[in-house]
Each structure stands twice: as C-alpha cells, then as structure tokens.
C-alpha cells in the first residue's frame, strides 16, 4: 500500500443516512463529504446526535449509507473490509476475557486469514512491547487497568497493518491523567506508523493534540459545520498544551462548537 496512490485514504462523498421506521425517519447524516489522506490524522468532534459515530460506522462498513459513496484506498468499504484494510478501535476495549492479551491481539490474524497474504503483518509480541505491555502478554484482560485494556485494543487494530484506523472515543472511559498518557502513547506510535486516522472524540484538547485537521459537526441533521486545520508542528509533546497557538485553536474550536449548538436551539 504505497502512499503515492492517488486514491489512498478515505473519501466520503455526499453521504446521507436516516434511521427510524417508514414515515417517521430522522435524518442523521445530511450530505456529508470528507477526505482523509494517507497518513493524515483527522478528528471528528460535535455535540451528541451530530452523527459522528454514525459516520465512523459507515466508513467501518457497519452501517450502509442511504446515498453517497465511501471509498477506502479507492475501494468500496465492502471490498476494503474483505481485504482487512480497516482497523477499528471501539468505545470500550471489547477484548475477549477468556483470551490472553497476546491472543486477543492475534485475533485479527486468525480471522479472515485469506486477506493475510501480501501484507506487512506485525509481530503481536513486538507491538505489545512497544505499547508498554511487554509484561502483560500472558495476562487476561480482567487483570489489566482500563487504560491498558484500551491500549491492547489499539494494538489489535494496528497489528494487521490496515491502511485506515477508525477510533470511536477510545479514551472517553479513562480518567483525565490516564487519558493524557494514552494520547501521547498513541501519537508516539502513529508518528512511526502513519495511517489515515479518523478519530471521533468529545474532547477539544484531545482533538487539537492529536489531529492535523478537526472536523466540527453540527446536529439535526448531522452535517459538517467547519473543518479547522491544526498547524502545530510534529512530533508533539505535552508542552503543546501550554503554547499560545494551542490556546488560540482551542478558542476557535470551542467558538465553532458554540455556534453549532446555538443553531440547534434557534
């Protein structure tokens, strides 16, 4: 999967989706278009009900759009999942409690093995060690803290070398201090394994810290209100939080979110 491919990354075009029974359908996504280049980290932020999770699930192939197209590396989502090109990190770690950490991370290799050919599969042991989980390989998920469990889930998504990584508020269940450590760890790892990342979050600082671009979505119906560039230099460290640029960006994103929420009540 070369970075030079013209179609590399995620291309969402004019996607609409409604839910509910015939006659009482609610529009959840209204003509949403978004492209995530190979190696680009894009966060999606917005109030509850703005359809950000629905958008992520559409890219993951878990939900079919009513109209519009989603392409991953120039393929339909269906073809992309068949080739195991999409790594998903769900909101909860969703590990199998009866398998060791190592066997949980091996799972993506075991499943749909046809798609294992011609790809750069990672060594599960190595990836877990680089995530600071070298001592936990033979432990069971129930013996790990929430933060460690979530890191195992991220390792599980990286291990089979997908081209796109989808993360649905992966750190939302952690406490603030733990969350910072997890963000930096993720950033560190992604720095040397550039995937196209779509990262759904509720947290403004988290979005700025991690992303190249922040997509602010509004609700009723879900739409993209604004796309904000984050020109902060990489690699980023914890010091970024203290810079003026960070604070300006934070102000900008919050302002946009306020506008989006205001529209809703108007």
């Amino acid at each position, binding site marked *: 999967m070369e970075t030079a491919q013209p179609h590399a990354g995620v291309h969402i075009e004019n996607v609409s989706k409604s839910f509910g029974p015939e006659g009482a359908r609610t529009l959840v996504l209204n003509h949403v278009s978004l492209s995530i280049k190979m190696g680009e980290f894009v966060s999606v932020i917005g109030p509850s009900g703005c359809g950000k999770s629905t958008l992520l*699930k559409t890219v*993951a*192939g*878990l939900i079919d759009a009513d109209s519009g197209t989603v392409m991953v590396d120039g393929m339909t989502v269906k073809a992309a*999942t*068949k080739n*195991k090109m*999409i*790594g*998903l990190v*769900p*909101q*909860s*770690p*969703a*590990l*199998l*409690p*009866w398998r060791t950490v190592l066997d949980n991370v091996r*799972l*993506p290799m*075991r*499943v*749909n093995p046809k*798609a294992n050919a011609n790809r750069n599969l990672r060594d599960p042991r190595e990836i877990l060690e*680089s*995530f*600071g*989980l070298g*001592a*936990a390989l033979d*432990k*069971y*998920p*129930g*013996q*790990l*803290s929430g*933060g*460690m*469990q979530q890191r195992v889930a991220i390792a*599980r*998504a990286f291990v*089979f070398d997908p081209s796109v990584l*989808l993360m649905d508020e992966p750190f939302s269940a952690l406490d603030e201090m733990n969350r910072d*450590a997890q963000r*930096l*760890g993720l950033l*560190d*790892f992604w720095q040397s394994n550039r995937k196209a990342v779509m990262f759904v979050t509720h947290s403004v600082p988290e979005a700025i810290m991690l992303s190249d671009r922040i997509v602010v979505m509004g609700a009723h119906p879900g739409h993209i209100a604004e796309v904000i560039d984050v020109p902060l230099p990489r690699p980023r460290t914890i010091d970024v939080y203290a810079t003026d640029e960070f604070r300006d960006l934070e102000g900008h994103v919050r302002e946009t979110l306020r506008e989006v929420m205001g529209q809703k009540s108007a």
Partner: protein
Amino acid sequence: MSTTDTSALAVQSATSATGRRFSPLASAKFKQNLRWTNWAPAVITFVIAAALWQITAIANPYVIPTIDQVWVSLIKDADTYWANMLVTGLEVLVGASSGIIAGFILAIIMAEFQVMERAVMPLVVVVMVTPIVAIAPALVVAFGFGMTPKFIVTALVVFFPMLVNSLAGLRDVDDRALDVMKTLHASRWEIFRDLRFTGSMPYVFAGLRIALPLAIVGAAVAEFVAAGQQAGLGSLVTIAAAQANLPVTWASIALLCFMGVVLISLLALVRKRVLWWSDGAAVGR
C-alpha cells in the same frame, strides 16, 4: 512510547496485577471459605433440622421413620440400594447428556438461523408446557418398561432449560467485539468460533444448574410410572411406600437427594475451571 511513559506503565502494571487463575489470592480465598463463620451456620441449621425430625419421628412412628432407622436400612441393604442407584444414575447420565447436547445444538441452529427459531420454538413450547408427569405413562405404553422411556423423559426435562439458556447466551455477545469482527470481514463460523461459543458459556452453566436437578426429577418420575424390572430409586420409593415401609422409602429419597447434591457439586467444580474469566469484575464491556 517515551521513557517517562514506560516507567509510569510499569508501576501501573505492578499494581493492577491481581494474579492469575490459581494465584495466592485464590488460595487465600479458599482458606477464608474454610473459616468456621462460613460453614458453621449451615451445619447448625442441619443439626437443628435433624433434631426436629428425630423428635417428630419418635412422636409419630407411623408417619416418618427416625434417622437411625433409615441409616440401619441403608447399611443392611446397601447392595440393593447401590444397584438401584446405579440404574437411576445411568438414566440421569444418558438422559441428561442427550438432552443437554440436543438443547445446545438446537440453540446454535436457532441462533444462527432466525427462521428456525420461528419454525421450531412454538412446537418446543407446546411440548414443554405439557406436564412431564402426564407424558411419562404415555411413553411407557409406547416404549415398554425398559430404559428407553426413562431416557426420553429425563432428556425432555433437561432439554428446555438448556435450549433457552444457551440461546440467550449465544445471542448476548459484546456488540463492540462483534463490530471489530465485522470490520475484519469475519465469517459467521469465525464469529461463532471466536466470540459466540465461549461467550455463551456463562448462560450454558446457568442452564445446567437448572437442568441437572431436573434430570433427577425426570428419572424418578419415569420410574414411578414404569417400575419395570430395572427398578431404580424412584420405583423403590413407590414400592416401599405402597408397603408402608418407611425406612426404605426415606432411604431411597435420601439417596436421590444425595445424587442431586453430588451433581450440583461436580457442576460447581467444572464451572470454576471453565468460567474463571466470567466471575468478578465486568471485563471489557
């Protein structure tokens, strides 16, 4: 990960390591279970119940036997009781295992093919609301006084709780783990193999806890209506009761009860080995 980060992780992993399957923690728990405050209350209850029984039995010699009468009968006719217990045990073993396997397999079919649930479940419900006590004599007419009707009755009573519990277990998968499997384009078989099968085990064991005592009920009921040559503890109860032989009646009842206790204890042991991951804190959900 940066160095500072890793050191923080080391601390974290040291504190969160709560031990493995058979850790010192587990043996500490075992010792705690042996403490007298844990077992003494139950023992006291049993002693009081036995004393009340004995007093009642002495006051009403034609209603219930005394415990020592039952004990004497058990020792004196140990061979007869043993032979009858083997018969009932065989009925329970064969009947229950076929009912358990059939229930689990049908649950898998229903979980994988919804149309099968819609097609077969109503029939299953109709059979299950029919009182087993009423079915048993009819089965004897159909299959004679041999073991067959006893196997069938025992399997029937076990089947339903197994089916319903297994079906619930196979359906109750972690939705998010399922999402991960779907983005990997996992086949139905792979989802069953890696997610549903083991995931259903807590429900399967809950079903077994209901089903195994029922298996003894099934075997005993089948023997009541079809004593036959092969006897069994159930027929021993009916025959002895008809002769007003109180010690034999109650000795047989006690042995049926003992079989149930053994089954449930074995189940608890197996459950501990198989389901160690499902006890305690919610994992990954």
